[in-house]
Structures are given as structure tokens and as C-alpha cells.
């Protein structure tokens, strides 16, 4: 399986810094912001954006993370072994009157984001929800568009986009790999 690096360590960090700037620019009142990441790597990226925004705005924004396993639209369509590991969600602040920046690593079909928005609304009624993603690889199946994109990656449907972050994978990079037979079927 061949793998091509599209964002290296420095590219990835520069990209996140740019996204943080865009968020700060588009939301002049940082006090009403909150960051919520989608497990697993979206939550890591959310923590990084949270730290960057904290430096820029000199304020401590609320941060949370969401596990969307209970909101998936394909529950029951998977074999037990591939059932995702569940991490509990943590949203310990009041969402009402806040602009929530939802963060994920890769935007693909849009189904994860749909599930995350559903999950978010079980915690309260945010004033606004914006979506920040590190990579947008296209192939949307739902009418969902990101507000902040790190990198647009034109991909074939069968290709795989791998986001690796130091906190989980010991390395910061984004790669595209060719499909292998089993994955193309899945």
C-alpha cells in the first residue's frame, strides 16, 4: 500500500495556526466561543486550536469533546469487531448563547458531522455552530459545508486519508493511501 504525505509536521502546525486566526477573525467576541472536538483525532485537533486561540485572544475558552457512537446512522450495519471504541463525551459548560466551533480531522460524507450536531443539541441550544476541519476530501452525501478548512484534498472515493497526530500516533502528518482490496469493499 503506497502512502503519500500531503501535510508534514510544520505544514500541519501552520495550517492549524491559520485556522485559529480565521476563527478569531470571524468571531470578534471570543468570550462567546466554545470548542468541541469529535473523537478521536478531532478532539486532539480541538485541543490544539483551543491552545492557539487561548494565546491569541488571551482568554480561556470552554472546550469539550463528543463521542458520536450512539448517534450513528449505521448502528447495526457493522460486525462487532469494528464497532468503535466508545469514549464518553465531555461537554461541561452551558452551550446556550455560545458559538460552538465543531472540530473534526477529515470531512468526507458529512455523516459524522450530522451525528455530532445531533449529539451537541442534546446538551443544549447553541446560538451558532461552525465547522472546522483539517482536511476536506469531498464526496459529501449530505448538505454540510465547513466554515474553516485546513486543506482541500481531491481524492478518489476508495482512497484513504490518514491524519496522524503526536498525541495519539507519535507523529504529526496527513497522508493519502491507495485503497487495498478489503477497504474498497467496505
Amino acid at each position, binding site marked *: 500500500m503506497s502512502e503519500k504525505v500531503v501535510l508534514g509536521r510544520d505544514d500541519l502546525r501552520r495550517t492549524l495556526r491559520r485556522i485559529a486566526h480565521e476563527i478569531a477573525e470571524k468571531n470578534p467576541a471570543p468570550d462567546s466561543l466554545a470548542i468541541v472536538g469529535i473523537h478521536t483525532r478531532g478532539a486532539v485537533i480541538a485541543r490544539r486550536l483551543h491552545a492557539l486561540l487561548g494565546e491569541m485572544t488571551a482568554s480561556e475558552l470552554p472546550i469539550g469533546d463528543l*463521542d*458520536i*457512537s*450512539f*448517534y*450513528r*446512522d*449505521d*448502528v*447495526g*450495519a*457493522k*460486525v*462487532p469487531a469494528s*464497532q468503535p*471504541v*466508545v*469514549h*464518553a*463525551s*465531555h461537554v461541561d459548560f452551558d452551550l446556550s448563547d455560545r458559538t460552538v466551533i465543531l472540530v*473534526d*480531522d*477529515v*470531512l*468526507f*460524507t458529512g*455523516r*459524522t458531522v450530522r*451525528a455530532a450536531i*445531533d*449529539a451537541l443539541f*442534546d*446538551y*443544549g441550544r447553541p446560538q451558532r455552530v461552525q465547522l472546522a476541519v483539517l482536511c476536506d476530501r469531498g464526496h459529501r*452525501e449530505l448538505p454540510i459545508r465547513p466554515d474553516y478548512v485546513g486543506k482541500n484534498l481531491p481524492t478518489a472515493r476508495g*482512497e*484513504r*486519508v*490518514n491524519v496522524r497526530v503526536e498525541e495519539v500516533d507519535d507523529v504529526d502528518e496527513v497522508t493519502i493511501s491507495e485503497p487495498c482490496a478489503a*477497504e474498497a*469493499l*467496505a
Partner: protein
Amino acid sequence: MRHLLGIDQLSRAEIEAILDRAESFAEVGRRDIKKVPTLRGRTVVSLFFEASTRTSSSFELAAKRLSADLVSIKSGGSAVDKGESLKDTIATLSAYDPAAIVIRHPYAGAAQLVAGWSEAAVVNAGDGKHEHPSQALLDLFTLRRRLGSLDGVRIWIVGDVLHSRVARSNLVAFQAMGAEVTVCGPPTLIPRGIEALGCKVSHSLDRLGEAEVVYALRLQKERMAETFVPSLREYAARFQIDTRRLAPRQLLMHPGPVNRGVELSGEAVDSPQSLISEQVASGLVVRMAILYELLAARERPTPVEGEGVRTGPTPLGQPA
């Protein structure tokens, strides 16, 4: 896992997976909206042929919190009163195409039979004196939260072991998680040969002090056709767990309902060592995890389109 019939069908890893899942459902219970859409459109049948407060209410609430549709039947007031057999009852309810059947029945092996008659996932909510696996799992969850791990923890199961399905399931479950179990009670209430399950046996409370956890059982008067104890007073005098016998460092559990003044004194039930109400709270989240584990991993009951290749939409976040 296709059915949950007994605790002995589960490996330690499978038990831990269910307990981890229950931990996430505990988080759901702390939200404003304590409900998730996971099992939307599935039907869960709860069928109780024996009295129950905790088990039936928590399974029913668990199904509702997962957004499943629930049909709840108690033997009293149903066609069972008119003499309908178990098999016919299951055939009738199968017409609703249930995804899961939760059953409690006075005869051992009832859940196993139902699993053979129905397409649904069957959860044994207690069958006679045989097994009560969801109780064992919720007790493990409660203890794991308190103690972290059960490895090497000494647990005494005290009371009417003979008539207790909880004793059987919990004995297996506690040992599977690495605990050392002693069963204690008068010789008439300890099944002969129970040592074969790997536990120790004691006929007095003299060494109760060595236990870190005391698990008391209800004296099951309804299952006693003959006299197993001379009198309730004499039983209480020798085997009641009270605050004098229970040290402050020991944890007290009981599957409920408690006969106050028989196997437990009133003060012991209400003492700070008592985990009894935590057990009830654990029951809800553990039963959510059981239903999730059985149903979320299983195909929806829709007609099969083609063989082998799924034609549905792209799974969420597949390579994401």
C-alpha cells in the same frame, strides 16, 4: 454476543467491554436530555413471569433511553393467566418482530429455550435458581467504580446461596475478574459441592473480617417449600450482617429487595458502607450497555439485498 443467557458465556475481555460501554452511558445520564437515538425503530419486549421492581424497571428505562420501542408484559394480567404456554407467548410476541426479548422466568433454562424459538436477541433477566447475568455485570460495574480493579479482592457472599441465581452468576463473574470468593451460610443453604466452582465455603461469620466486600443475599422464603432454617430469629442471630459485624472499611452489597432485620439489619442497609443504591443506579447504565452490545452490532431486521456486499450508504466516517 448474540444472546446474554449466562455470565459463563462471557470472557473477561467481553465483560470489560460491556463495563466500559456502561461508563459512557453513565455520561449520557448526566446530560439534560438523557436519551440517545441509537436503537430508534427497534422493538424490545420485556417479559416478566416473576415479581421484579429493579430489573424490570431498569431494563425498560434502558430501552427507552436508547430510543427503542418497548412492549412490557407481566405474567399477571396477561394471557399467561389464561393458560397460554411460554412457547405460544413467544410466538405471539414474535409477530412484532422484536430485536430483543428480556425474560424472567421461575424455571431454569427458560431463557435458553426462548433463544431457540425466536430470532430476537434474548437477555436472561433471571431464570429460576440458575443465572442472573445482568445483576452480576452491574455488581462488577459498581465494584469497579469503587475499587478500580477486582484482582485479589476478597469477597464474601453471605446467606441463602442455595436458592440464589445471583449467587451463581456473581460467583462466576467475581472470579472471572480475579476476585477471591467465599460463600457463607448455614449448611442447609449452601449447595453441596459448590467448592468445585473454585470458591471457599464457611458456615459461620467468624472470619468475615477478612473480606473487603460483603455481598449479602436475600433469604428467599418464596422458594422454600420446606424448612431450611429453624427460625428467622435464629438465622438472623447467626448470619445477619449488622453494623457490629461489618467493619467501617468493608463494603456492603445486596441485590435487593432486602428483608430488613433478617439478612441485613436496618442500620447496615443505611450505613455509609452500603452500595445498595449505587447498585440500582449501575443497573440502568449496565443494562443500556447490554442492549447496545446485543443490538447495535447486529443487522437491522430489513430484507436482505444481495449476499455479502452491503448496499447501504457509506458508513459514517469510514476512512475519516
